[in-house]
């Protein structure tokens, strides 16, 4: 028997013309649907996301085809990916049928859907359809029965579920009805290669051939109109994410994580700084709203949302889209509201997990820039005070700048202005310089360097705040002012500064990345990787002393810089036994101090730092280790206010290492 199937069986070639006409009409609607959206995207400022094409295509391959970002959350991710691949296989199958019947066979009399290949083809499609159907069932159960908290179901969701079920089911029914006529009985061997179709065919056993043929004709057209309806509906519904998400992977931000646009403050013609309306954002910011599928993964991980603050990253992204499409003149900051905007800690959990590569954080910062630079607004009076303190004394505490280097008194550390010859410039940062608890970290770091024979230089009173909190709060002017001063100061020392090391991840990100735009090209490293390297190179030796601990991946070291393993290795070398928190590594939960919020009072919702302290408590470890002065400060506070002092202590990696130095390794290794 022929191992293939007659294309257009029963319906006849007479359907081809109307089929193609309707299909083209649907495609025309599809194209027009997307086209009319582009004028809204173009409301935003220009942005070049067409560079490094090979890298961009690779991202599309990884994320659209292999669904890597979607799969970051295993269960719902798998449901979606398997559904997508199943549906994709069916789509390819349909294309192959079309290719053969309307091109290869028609013009060249070549038929490839036969023999072994057809058997494989038929089986593959049946299984794909089954998988798609089952996954769709799973997704439906999740959305309508399990009802995860925060998952909004809108009209589009009902429509899409119904449409996809209908398409898949009618597809199988049509197959079953056909097979009942063409295969069951007459070609049973071939029927084995369509197991699902076989089951459906069994259900129609009782009908006569002419009844089956009538049913088949009707269902064929039903299935066809559902399919073209599906195509036409794409740009008008949530289904558009098939294309907008794929495009979003292509349009990914390829710059280092946390890169912000450096405003040109010399441009006297600039009248608007930051984003007051959607037109002040880029086209990509508006486009992001179209890629969003309301999966709420960002919202689930947002430390502000998790502690009952009004910020939902998903909602902000969508509001931008809503305004762009309905009221582009509206004041964006007033729509989103200050409370929402100031709540962000820039932890990046939203962006890291977003399956469609939306960029949440920079939108918030652009709006903060509008609030700060155009309105002179602050997250609170205490923030205004801190900003004023930055302007006068270069630190948020309002302490005299001249005392900034005093923490180092009595230590083996040299002031750069005294002509020191050093191996590294230690950029201490505001907290290590002035805050009693964090001065311990600075001293520990110096001790470690001494032990490894690394000569340390500091700027002392010449050092100013790196400017990061000001920048993240939107005050680009103050940031650039302080940054320029730091860069000029460092440049004065010329070749004598070969490398900069800092114990603060915020200073680290700022000096290593942000300062590049302003002309600083000296390599910058965080103390954790620096110490890891010293250990690895044998320049530093530890006498491990056992301790139990849990480790907090600070946002600016973990998510921003992907530094997860080295600190753990260092702590293990120090004798530590680690009990990981549930939310660790890239899923780490912010301490609440980022985004300039270390300067602010937390007045809305519950305390983020207490939330994280409880997570640490849950591991039963007596020590919570971090590697950031903001985290250390937040945890010391959080432990007190949550009343866990008896059960938990906070410590910094540098302190732990400094307490375990093998005595004078320099003596052993020699100069």
């Amino acid at each position, binding site marked *: 028997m022929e191992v293939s199937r007659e294309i257009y069986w029963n319906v006849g070639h007479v359907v081809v013309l109307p089929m193609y006409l309707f299909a083209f009409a649907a495609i025309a609607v599809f194209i027009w649907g997307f086209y009319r959206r582009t004028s809204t995207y173009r409301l935003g400022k220009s942005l070049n996301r067409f560079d490094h094409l090979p890298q961009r295509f690779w991202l599309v391959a990884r994320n659209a085809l292999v669904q890597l970002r979607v799969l970051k959350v295993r269960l719902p991710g798998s449901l979606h990916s398997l559904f997508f691949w199943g549906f994709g296989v069916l789509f390819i199958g349909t294309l192959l049928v079309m290719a053969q019947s309307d091109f290869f066979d028609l013009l060249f009399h070549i038929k490839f859907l036969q023999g072994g290949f057809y058997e494989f083809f038929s089986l593959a499609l049946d299984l794909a359809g089954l998988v798609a159907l089952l996954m769709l069932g799973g997704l439906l159960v999740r959305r309508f029965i399990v009802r995860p908290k925060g998952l909004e179901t809108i009209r589009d969701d009902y429509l899409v579920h119904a449409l996809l079920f209908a398409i898949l089911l009618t597809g199988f029914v049509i197959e079953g009805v056909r097979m009942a006529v063409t295969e069951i009985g007459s070609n049973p061997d071939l029927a084995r290669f369509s197991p699902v179709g076989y089951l459906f065919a069994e259900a129609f056993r009782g009908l006569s051939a002419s009844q089956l043929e009538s049913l088949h004709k009707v269902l064929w057209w039903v299935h066809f109109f559902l399919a073209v309806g599906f195509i036409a509906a794409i740009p008008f519904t949530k289904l558009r994410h098939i294309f907008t998400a794929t495009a979003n992977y292509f349009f990914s931000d390829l710059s280092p994580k946390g890169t912000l646009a450096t405003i040109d403050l010399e441009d006297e013609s600039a009248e608007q700084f930051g984003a007051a309306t959607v037109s002040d954002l880029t086209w990509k910011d508006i486009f992001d709203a179209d890629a969003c599928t309301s999966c709420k993964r960002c919202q689930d991980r947002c430390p502000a949302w998790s502690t009952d603050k009004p910020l939902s990253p998903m909602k902000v992204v969508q509001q931008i889209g809503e305004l762009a499409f309905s009221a582009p003149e509206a004041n964006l900051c007033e729509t989103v509201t200050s409370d929402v905007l100031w709540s962000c800690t820039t932890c990046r959990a939203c962006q890291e997990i977003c399956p469609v590569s939306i960029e949440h954080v920079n939108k918030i910062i652009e709006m903060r820039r509008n609030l700060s630079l155009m309105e002179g607004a602050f997250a*609170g009076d*205490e923030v205004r*005070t*801190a900003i004023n303190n930055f302007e006068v004394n270069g630190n*948020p*505490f*309002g*302490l005299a700048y001249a005392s900034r280097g005093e923490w180092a008194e009595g230590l083996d550390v040299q002031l750069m202005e005294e002509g020191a010859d050093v191996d590294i410039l230690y950029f201490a940062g505001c907290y290590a310089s*002035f*805050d*009693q*608890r964090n001065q311990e970290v600075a001293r520990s770091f110096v001790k470690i360097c001494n032990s490894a024979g690394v000569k340390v230089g500091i700027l002392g009173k010449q050092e100013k705040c790196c400017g990061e909190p000001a920048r993240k709060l939107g005050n680009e002017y103050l940031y650039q002012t302080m940054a320029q001063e730091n860069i000029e100061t460092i440049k004065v020392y010329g070749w004598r500064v070969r490398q900069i090391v800092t114990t603060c991840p915020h200073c680290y990100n700022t000096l290593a990345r942000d300062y590049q735009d302003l002309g600083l090209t000296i390599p910058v490293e965080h103390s954790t990787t620096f110490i890891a390297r010293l250990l690895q190179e044998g320049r530093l030796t530890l006498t491990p002393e056992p301790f139990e601990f849990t480790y907090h991946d600070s946002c600016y070291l973990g998510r921003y810089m992907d530094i997860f393993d080295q600190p753990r290795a260092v702590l293990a070398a120090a004798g530590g036994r680690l009990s990981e928190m549930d939310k660790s590594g890239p899923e780490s939960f912010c301490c609440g101090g980022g985004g300039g919020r270390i300067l*602010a*009072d937390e007045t809305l919702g519950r*305390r983020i730092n207490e939330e994280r302290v409880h997570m640490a408590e849950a591991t039963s470890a007596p020590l919570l280790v971090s590697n950031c002065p903001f985290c250390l400060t937040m945890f010391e*506070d959080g432990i*007190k*206010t949550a*009343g866990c002092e008896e059960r938990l202590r906070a410590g910094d990696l540098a302190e732990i290492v400094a307490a375990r130095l093998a005595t004078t390794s320099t003596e052993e290794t020699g100069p």
Partner: protein
Amino acid sequence: MKALLICEYRESQLLESTYELLAFAGQLGADTAMVLVGDAANTPRYGGKVYLADAATYGEYNPAAHKGLVLAAVEKESPDYIIFQHSSYGWDLAPRVAAALKSAQVSEVIGIVDGGFETGACNGKMRRTVKPATARVVLTIQAGAFTFEGEPQGTPQVEKLDFAGPANVQFVGYEPAEAKEVDLTRAEVIVSAGRGIGKQDNVPVIAALAKAISGELGASRPVVDAGWVEHSRQVGITGQTVSPKLYIACGISGAIQHLAGMKKSDFVVAINKDKDAPIGETADVLVVADVMKFAPALTAKLQG
């Protein structure tokens, strides 16, 4: 040497600061006379001469008239010193008198030294000795810097004082102080509770100490965060920045954010179990004790 002392009168009351003027004049070793724009029923307990002008006629705030009245008394007494309190009344009136006489004015005097008068500078962190170059000098003295020893007594010899001239402002009246949540920035004494007090139930002990010393209750951030004390009482970088004459930190370790909020205090007492608590570096007196034992003892002594 003669000193003309300018008394203060508000809401129909003679203010007690009058006696501080007397104390200062005593230190100067000067004979005294007084000027009072007030009323005959409220003259100071003082045996010297009081030039009295009727407050009902001239108004309690009427710079042009008060200046004219003081100048009239100056005309009669030819004093070497004209002394005011450094108060909202004194710092408003003294420069007018000084300008009219083209006399040197030294403000907020805290002491008399060889070669001049000692005043504060730079928020009280430094001292400045000022030497007047004119024969007649106008002075304003710091509130509370000079205390009258013993009980003032005497009945003054009253001479009526008049002034004819236009007022250049119109005093409408007083507005009473708002009944509002605490404004610690105006407090002269603050007693703050820190985590060292242990628990919320212990807050009243600190509040009692604050009351006993006529101060306001303040708190460090963790205490406010824990909900033991209301936010308006928070002292520190994210609370209120205060500069009282006396700050008593109870069970406060001295984290930088708190210190930054009260570093401007004139005198700091820290009560802490920990002799090495960071606040000890800022404190003028560190009382090494369990705050829950010491505070009640101090309160009792202050009340007793």
